[in-house]
Every structure is written in structure tokens, then in C-alpha cells.
């Protein structure tokens, strides 16, 4: 039962991703992507990583995707755009890259199938994660704060300009 749930989640995740990336409407695509992320969160949970599952939903699906939504709203992409997107997705455009990617997938599959063993079935609790995070990984947290600062300052600088301009015009 649980196993089938896991594989189902995997199937949903993959399908939703493919659908998401082949949409012409950005909002639709985003919703598929969120579904995919939720499915991945289910997989996390089932593999015994509840904390990661929660973060996947809260941060990924919740925060990052909202950023996308926000930008899409700001840009106000119309119908004409959708028409053009459809033309861009003609088979002659995607067939060669997809073949290329499939070759890569086969190569990866050949290697991945070598590994045996299963996930341990032991739950790694949020407490354990927290202890490890603020133990050996303490410096990672500090550096991550710097990383977020860089992202923040960069986004501020770039975003401010576009907003200033739009006000002027």
C-alpha cells in the first residue's frame, strides 16, 4: 500500500513535470510544477524525511513558486504570447534535444542500476536534522546566510531598476 503510494507519487511527479515544461501558458505550467513538487514532498515523507517534506512544501512550493507567480502577474503575459509559444514547441524543435537527453538518461540508467540496496526505512527526525545542522554543519548555515544576502542584494538592485523605470514611463 505504502509502496504503491510511493510509486504513484513518483509517477505524478514526473508527469506533472513533463506537463509543466511543455505548457504554453506560464500559469498552468506553474501549477503543474507545484503539483510535481508536492508529489516529491510525498516521496520525501515516505522515505523517512518528514522535515525535508515539510520544507519542500513550505519553501519550494510555497515561497519560490510564489515568486514565479508574482513575476508572471507583473509581466502580464497575454494570448499572443501563448500563440507564439505553441509555434516554438513544434516537434522539429524538441526532437533532437529530447533524443540527446534520452541518450544521457540511458547512460545514467546503466550506472544507476548497478547500485543495490534500499532506503533504510529509518526515519531521520527533524530533531536529528537540527542537531546535525547546528553541529557539524554550523558553518554551512553561516555561509548560507551570506548566500541569501547576495541573492537579496542582487535581486534588490536589479528589481529596483525595473520598478523605477516603469514608474517613470
Amino acid at each position, binding site marked *: 500500500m505504502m509502496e504503491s503510494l510511493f510509486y504513484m507519487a513518483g509517477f505524478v511527479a514526473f508527469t506533472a513535470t513533463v506537463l509543466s515544461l511543455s505548457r504554453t501558458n506560464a500559469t498552468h505550467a506553474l501549477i503543474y510544477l507545484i503539483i510535481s513538487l508536492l508529489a516529491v514532498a510525498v516521496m520525501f515523507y515516505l522515505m523517512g524525511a518528514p522535515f525535508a517534506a515539510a520544507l519542500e512544501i513550505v519553501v519550494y512550493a510555497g515561497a519560490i513558486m510564489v515568486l514565479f507567480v508574482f513575476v508572471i502577474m507583473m509581466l502580464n503575459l497575454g494570448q499572443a504570447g501563448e500563440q507564439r509559444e505553441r509555434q516554438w514547441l513544434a516537434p522539429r524543435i524538441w526532437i533532437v534535444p529530447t533524443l540527446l537527453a534520452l541518450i544521457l538518461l540511458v*547512460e*545514467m540508467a*546503466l*550506472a*544507476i542500476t*548497478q*547500485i*543495490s540496496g534500499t532506503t533504510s526505512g529509518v526515519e531521520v527526525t527533524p530533531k536529528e536534522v537540527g542537531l546535525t545542522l547546528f553541529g*557539524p*554543519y*554550523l*558553518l*554551512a548555515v*553561516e*555561509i*548560507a546566510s*551570506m*548566500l541569501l*544576502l*547576495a*541573492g537579496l*542584494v*542582487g*535581486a*534588490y*538592485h*536589479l528589481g529596483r*531598476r525595473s520598478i523605477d523605470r516603469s514608474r517613470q514611463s
Partner: protein
Amino acid sequence: MNLAAMQGLLPLLVLGLGAAVLMLQISIRRQLGWSYAITVATLLLGAAAMEPAMQVAPLQVTPLLRVDNLGLFFGSLFCLSGAVTAVISRDYLRSREGENEEYFLLLLLSTLGAVILAYSTHVAALLLGLELLSVALYALIAYPERGTLPLEAAIKYLVLSGAASATLLFGFALIYAALGSLEYAEIAVQISAGRAATSPALILMGAAMVFAGLGFKLSVVPFHMWTPDVYEGAPAPISGFLAGVSKGAVFIAVLRWFLESGFFQYSSLLAGITLLSIASILVGNLLALLQTNVKRILAYSSIAHLGYLLIVLVAAGVSPEPGLAVEAGGYYVVAYVITTLAAFSLLGLISRQSGDREYDQLSDLAGLFWKQPGLAALFTVALLSLAGIPLTAGFIGKFYLISAGVDAALWGLLAALVIGSAIGIFYYLRIIYTMTTVGEQANPGTTADMLVGSRLVVYLLIFAMLYLGIVPEPLMGYLRTIL
């Protein structure tokens, strides 16, 4: 975190603190002069902090970072390079309007990323250092307010670099799945314990994906396509930082990864690197051959130079005594970083009053020798060093590399190096020749208005390139003791 660890991490602490102070300063009162001063002071202090940190080296601080001479030396090299970039940027930004304080904050954060890379002994540190370096650079590349080229360059870099990071991470995930460790030294232990024997292909594929991701940052063929576009679009000082510091830091991180995690024993990985090296040398030099945009020439030349540098990895893997190869790599990185900074500094400095566009066409350099002899001298020395002409740092670096290659009997790679260098001389000398002609085009005619800092940096860079070429032994001896 005890006191010794704090002392060892002093360079990082100084940089982090400096970034915090700078941020506060910007939020209290915007003033470019102050931001500039804080940045340069922080970077110089960060470089100087190597001294106290060395007293506790070698010291492993959490599994993530190791304070040792290698990391400290290159960390301070990157700090100094960051300071050089800041000084050149100050001149470069003078004619460019807008709020430029964040520029220095981002530069500081980016340098911090580079220093972390030099210390990294763990996947998490590698990932964070790499991303801190890159994320700050995305914004820096797109920093100029006008023109579309910086924007295009930044998007290209962001997307492709993100893809490269994802590839790298996937590779590490596979290695983690096979070996159960993220720490380099631990990985080496697991490999030698035979855990790798159960799934060698998985590990190799992981390693290949990691190398592809890092190869992107090093702009190694075939992951090189972005390089000329991004260098051309970015502001010249940032291109220099990207080509010098970013590549140097990633190379040091790669070197650490290779040295400590025991991946040298996979001969097929070395074969793959050999292939990439030869391709980079030939493709890089050929692409530069008839190029007329100086930034693109330098971009292609940097591709070729990283190809030369990869010889180090192969030599260190093949040779039973990797010491010589590692020394050669260390020396080459120093020479390459300094020379690259010098070359791009010139482009930044002649474009200091150019308004929106940059003087990066070959024809823009015509007659530079007669108009701004000091800058022309800087560029000439840099180009000669890139070409590997004797009495410059580049010559010694290449010579070192060749002896490492000979030592490991890598004749194919050496042949590529010789062919590549021969092609290289053509286009480097072409630039020098152009500078001596009398140009008819409008040309950066401004002289004598450079800031004192820029002048100082120009002299220092010329001195460094010549000193390392004429008196290379002190640095060689130093590298011998620390590597």
C-alpha cells in the same frame, strides 16, 4: 568553535564582518567613497589575516573547511585580486551613473565565496562557496544601468551556471549514494576500503557529472560556449574577476577534491580530463585566432589556459610523485590570476570614461602606445605573459607545467600545449602590434586622470608579472613548502 578555530577562520570572519559593516553603511548613508574604502580595507585585511591563521594551520574546522597553507595562501591571493578588481572598478564606475554602492558589497561577497572554495573539504562547503561566488556575480555582470549586453550576459551565465550546479549536485548525490559520505577525506577512506568496488560505474558517472559542472565554471571545452559572451557583456573589471578569481578558486577547489578524495586512481577519469584538456587548448586558441573583440580574445585565451592547467590534474594522477605537478599547478594559478587581472584591468581602465560602451574592440587599442604608454606597457607585459614569453610569470608557469608533463610522460598533452602556444603567440602579438600602430579611429584619448589607486595597481601588476618571471624561485620555494 574554539579560539583556535576562530583564529584559523579569521580571513573568513574579516570578510563576513566587512560585508555586514558595508551593508550597514549603505543602509545608513549612501556614499560611494566610504563603500569603496570599506571594501578595499576589508579585502586587504582579509589577505593579511592569513598570517595569524597560519599559526594554527593545519586545522580542520568542522568537516566543512580546512585551514591549511594551501587554502590560506590562495585565499589571500583571491582577496588581493578582489582588492585589485575593486580599485579598477572605482575608476571604471566614475563615468557610470547610478547607485554603485551595492557593487562593492557584491564584490566582497563574491570574494568570500572564492575564499571558501579554497578552504573547502566537503561537498556542502564546495556548493555554498561556488554559489556565493556565482550568485553575487550574476548581479555584478548585470550591474550597469544602461545597455542590453550586460543583461544578456547575466541571464546566460545564470541559467547555464545553474544547470551546471545542478549537474554537479546530481553527481555528488550519486557518489553519496554509493559511498555514504560527503567529506572528501571520508570519501577517500571509503574508496580505499573497497566500498567503491560494488558500483564503480556509479562513482565514475558521479565524478564525471561533478567534473562537468566544475568544468563549466572553468570553461573547459565543451562546456565553454558561454565564456566569450559573458566576458564581453560584463563590465570589464568583473570579466577580469570572473576569468581570474572565479576560475582560480574553482581550480583550487578541483585540485583539493582530486587530491583528497582519491579520485586519481580512476584512469578513465584521467583519460576524460586529457580529452577535455586537449580540446580546450586547441579550440580555445583557434577561436581566438581572428577574433577582433579583445574581451572575446581574452575569453578564448582563458579557455586555452585552463586547458593547460588541466595537464596538472592528469600529471598529478599519472605520476607516482604528484608533488611537482601540484607545485606547477599552484604556480600556474598564481601567474594566470595575476596576468588575467592585469589584462582586464587595462580594458577597465581605458573604458573609464567611455560612457555606455566599452573600448573592447581591437581597433580601439590602435595607437595606445603613444597615447597612454603606461597602460600599453601593462597590457604588453600581460600579453607576453599569457603567450609565455621568457622573463614573464607566464613563461615560468608554462615551463613548470611542461616539466611536470615531461615528468609524467604526457606527450600528447604536451604536443597540444606546444601547438596551442604557437597559435597563441600569433594573436597575442597581433594585439601588441595594433597598439603600436597609429590609429585613425576615435580612441581613448584621456590620459593622466587615473586615480592614484589605479596607478598603483598598474605598477604593482607590472612588477608582479615581471618579478615572478625573473625571480620565480621564492614563490616556487614557498609553494614547495606548503603543497
